[in-house]
């Protein structure tokens, strides 16, 4: 049964109910923008009724952003945070995927990793920051380590799970055709683990952004975290919101980039429907 005929038959069986059609891309974008617009309008209206220290408003935040770009404080802070984010996210994803793939294939490694990983995944990484500072100082290295700790576990756990979920029937197919272990990775294990790896990275992006701000707060104050802290301390609420919005935009942008990469890598799923 092909996917194209199924909905039509369902419609014929229950003529009273309209079949649920997937949203068209244009409609989906309209809905996305509508929700953002609604939030901004509500913020603008409610914000202008209150003391600007308590909430500020989107227009005031925009004006503050322009000013902070002009005086160079925002680009400088962003660059500093992006270095930490990039290094921490990249090293965490590489380590998480590598260890996760190995743990998925090796029972021994999985058993060795299980308790430490579960324990560290559950421990708030913030609690480890004093120790990280003792070991790595206050600068970029320490901050990268904090982000790494936020990132590595969800990637590792999801990757292992993905390797485990490889269809046993396909493993059997590979074995009857006398596939080598190396070829089995390329033909079978990596493609079937891919969606799980992507899910792990998606979680990791959110956690990495938290990690960057946390690291910038609790080690040497720097980057976007510093901008947030200093603006808040001096009651410049509009200026405080600028780096927060930038972090949110980074999250949206990175997630969109990941989805784009996944679509490129898994074309077979996009065309399956």
């Amino acid at each position: 049964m092909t996917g194209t005929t199924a909905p039509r038959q369902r419609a014929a069986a229950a003529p009273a109910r309209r079949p649920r059609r997937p949203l068209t891309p244009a409609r989906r974008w309209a809905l996305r923008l509508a929700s953002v617009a609604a939030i901004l309008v509500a913020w603008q209206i409610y914000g202008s009724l209150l003391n600007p220290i308590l909430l500020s408003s989107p227009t005031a935040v925009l004006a503050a952003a322009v000013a902070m770009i002009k005086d160079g404080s925002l680009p400088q802070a962003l660059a500093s945070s992006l270095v930490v984010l990039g290094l921490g996210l990249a090293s965490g994803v590489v380590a998480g995927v590598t260890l996760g793939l190995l743990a998925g294939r090796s029972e021994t490694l999985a058993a060795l990793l299980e308790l430490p990983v579960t324990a560290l995944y559950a421990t708030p990484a913030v609690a480890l920051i004093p120790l990280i500072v003792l070991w790595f100082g206050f600068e970029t290295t320490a901050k990268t380590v904090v982000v790494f700790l936020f990132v590595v576990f969800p990637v590792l756990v999801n990757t292992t799970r993905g390797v485990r979920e490889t269809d046993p029937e396909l493993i059997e197919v590979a074995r009857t055709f006398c596939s080598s272990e190396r070829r089995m990775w390329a033909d079978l294990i990596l493609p079937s683990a891919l969606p799980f790896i992507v899910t792990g990275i998606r979680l990791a992006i959110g956690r990495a952004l938290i990690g960057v701000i946390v690291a910038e707060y609790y080690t040497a104050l720097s980057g976007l975290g510093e901008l947030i802290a200093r603006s808040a301390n001096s009651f410049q609420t509009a200026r405080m919101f600028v780096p927060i919005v930038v972090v949110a935009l980074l999250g949206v942008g990175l997630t969109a980039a990941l989805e784009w990469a996944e679509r490129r890598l898994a074309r077979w799923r996009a065309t399956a429907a």
Partner: protein
Amino acid sequence: MPEREFVGVIGVSGGGKTTLLRTIAGLLPTSTGSVTLGGTPVLAPTPRAAMVFQHFGLFPWKTVRANVAYGLRVQGRGPAPGQVQRLLAALRLDDVADRYPAQLSGGMKQRVGIARALAVEPKLLLLDEPFSAVDAITREELQNEVLQLWERHQRMTALLVTHDIDEAILMSDRIIVISGPPGHITRELPIGLPRPRTSQDVRSHEDYPRIRKLLWDSLERRPARLPEPA
């Protein structure tokens, strides 16, 4: 098992048919006795045997063409585009060669499975209930196609595991019945029907009812005990 013969194995579910097939494929170890192929024992999967799977076992992320070429590629025998193209044509898959399995019907998926097995030019073709997951009309089509392919290039031995008596009669030179305690062979029956065959002329052959009855009787277990009338 003589070479170049088409052997059918029938039996009820859970009777050990699939175990037998998987042992021959080298996927399972033997508990007693041994499996040999062309004189050498089979302890692990061998490139001389290829299997068609009940649930197709296609790689969803590979196109039809890449699935058919799979066996050749993992066995380091090059992409062999000519060979793959020939099989795609023989199984009427040319039009869908660049599609992914999720875009195909069950019958088409199994055509891919069959082409993939034939591509490695096995000495032994193992068929694990290959037509049980497709609808009745497609099943008959596929049976006839496989029969034709096999009759045309009679270079390989084929072993078909099925629970469909008619399918076994249609395709086999010899039928082995497994029933009773798991793995117990209760009957071995040569099928002398003339080749080439089609489902139409096999079913109208005068010997057909007799063969069918013989097989059915040897499959039959103790009749279920009916409740006493009150």
